């Protein structure tokens, strides 16, 4: 499902996607479709995608802080200045964590190619997420984890924890292995800030 398009980038691996609002597409995404930790893919070239994870949400509202009198009541705006209503938008930050193509080739880590403006952002299915993390019979990989943690964001460990939680449901056979990482992240995010030491 397409949830929006790339409108900006902050770095080679940090993109901003504007989520489709009402009227822009036939079926605009609901908040659950662009939740924190959601895997998305952005089309790069034909049959090749940038894989990213939603790591931030920003609400764009030009009306906020405008305290002067209104010449037109809100009901009339839809008639006289419909563009004004569309200036409100939901923006999500996407951390690029790798690339994949239709042939199943996956690269985890800093992608070499960058996404272009207006590139469509699509929510990934469970099967696609699984393919991104596991190739054929080899064990799953989470090689982009250090990249996420290196962002320096206070949300990074929480994001990784959310990712691991998804992988635990996608790879039930590897739950013991993933639990080792998950427990460490939970300790760091839940117990560490309260004085837990490790």
């Amino acid at each position: 499902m397409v949830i929006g398009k790339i409108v900006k980038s902050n770095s080679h691996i940090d993109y901003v996607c504007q989520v489709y609002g009402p009227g822009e597409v036939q079926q605009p995404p609901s908040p659950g479709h662009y939740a924190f930790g959601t895997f998305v893919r952005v089309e790069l070239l034909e049959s090749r995608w940038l894989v990213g994870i939603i790591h931030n949400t920003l609400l764009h509202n030009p009306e906020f802080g405008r305290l002067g009198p209104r010449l037109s009541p809100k009901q009339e705006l839809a008639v006289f200045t419909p563009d004004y209503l569309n200036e409100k938008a939901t923006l999500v930050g996407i951390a690029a964590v790798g690339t994949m193509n239709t042939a199943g080739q996956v690269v985890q880590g800093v992608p070499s190619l960058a996404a272009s403006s207006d590139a469509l952002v699509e929510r990934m299915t469970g099967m696609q997420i699984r393919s991104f993390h596991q190739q054929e019979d080899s064990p799953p990989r989470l090689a982009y984890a250090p990249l996420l943690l290196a962002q320096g964001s206070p949300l990074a460990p929480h994001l990784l924890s959310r990712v691991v939680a998804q992988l635990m449901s996608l790879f039930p056979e590897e739950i013991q292995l993933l639990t080792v990482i998950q427990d460490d992240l939970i300790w760091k995010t839940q117990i560490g800030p309260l004085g837990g030491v490790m």
Partner: protein
Amino acid sequence: MSKQQPVGLTKGPGATPREFTFVSQDRDYTLKSGEFVVYHVDVDDQDRTILARITKRQPLRVYPDAFLSDPGVNPDDVAGLLGYRSRAHELFEVSATVIGYYDGDMGDFIDPRVPPRLGLPIYLATDAELTHALNKKRKGDVGAAHIGSLLDREKDRVPIVLDLRAITSTHLVIVASTGSGKSYLAAALVEEMMKPNNRAAVLIVDPHSEYGTLAEMVHLEAFVEAAYRPEVQVFRPGQVKVRASALTLEDLCHLLPDLSEKMEYLLRRAYYEVRQRSQEKKHRYDRWTLEDLETCLRELAKGGSEEKGERYGSTADALIWRLKSVLERSTIFDDSKNANLPALFRPGRCSILQLNEVDEREQQVMVATILRRLFRARLLTTKGRVRQGSELCLPFPVFVLIEEAHRFAPATGDVVSKGILKQVLSEGRKFGLAVGLVSQRPGKLDGDVLSLCGTQFILRVVNPLDQARLAESVETVGREQMDELPALSKGQVVIAGEAVSTPLTCRVRFRYTPHGAETKDAPAEWMTFFDQGGAENPPLSEGEDHVADGSTES
């Protein structure tokens, strides 16, 4: 030059000028503490192989503790999950101490005095390199004693061959906790001394009768060559005598402890008087008897002037009673017989002096008198002041192995044997008189005695006091090897000092002769008692203890 692949590359200097560090993956886990490595450098335009010993290794890369939180999950798999799949995840910084390159002409290691440059390949020393560098002698050489193999390598890959010449000139000490194999090692060393390539003159002072099995040497092929076959004489307690007149005043005082000042005074006067009379009569100081001493004591008691307060009657009686009770009852003192040194010592002969039924003070006096006479005999013989055939003529170097050495040179208290033992240790080299000391309590052994022994064999030592005494008295053994002592197993020994090129850890070889000090298996013997039907319950009190040889003890 080593043909193998290098095991690491030098990183830089270590904590001391002779230390350096290198980095290694050590995939085969070969770089253990104590292991030997080499590097190659040019010294004075010559390619030299520098030997170094590993002293420490510490990991440079370690997994986060969290990776180790679940025993059911391999941390490698966790690392793999995060995209790290290299086999070479372990990396170590290894510290090594330079020993030097072996100079055949000097017969010793020469320190290059320059640490290896950065990035120099480090190789594991080959067995051949170690065999060449660690041993001053080759197996079968005259003066070679093959005592075992290097512990850091597979059994028998690097033989350890000691330089007997060093041992027999600068003495040795064997220390270990009980049951660690010290008498086994000592016997193996004696076996080497008695082989056809050495043919030593050895006396073993054996307070526990553990060395009697060495007598089997005479039947074994390894000890026989052409006309040579070693002799082993085992002397039961009482077979070797000490003539009463060979005792010094100090010996007598030691045998009669806690003498009052008056008794000591009277004994001193009588002792010098009886020696004087002996000299006048027989032109020898040492030909008096216990009866002569007794007579002299009685005469002194009678001749005392009462006006001067010289009333010695009761003192003389008490002294005579004590002298008789000690010397007459003893199995080792005799009025006329004395241990004949040429009968005890001869090249190719091993005499074993069993002292298991002899009182400890008498043992000390016996060792003191034998060492005194040996010292005198070797001194006079080397200076040509004794005629051929004399009982003090010993025209060859001799070696004396003393078990339970802490009895004869204790750290605290004076015993008669300590002084002569120190004299032998410090001066014996000049006269070809060498001593080997064996002790299970180095902490109770005199510190000077311990440090005067040029070669040290240290087996497992657990007691902290013993370890501290070794650390302060044995300067040739490094701190790292001292730390290894509690972890050594039976038959593993740290050898340091004159007989080896560098301190090393050795696995003692199997003995040719059976071991005579096996530890008793008490539970098994208790079971055997019942399997054999047990024995009748004896009465609670009985007049006499019947001993196996038919005699009785009251």
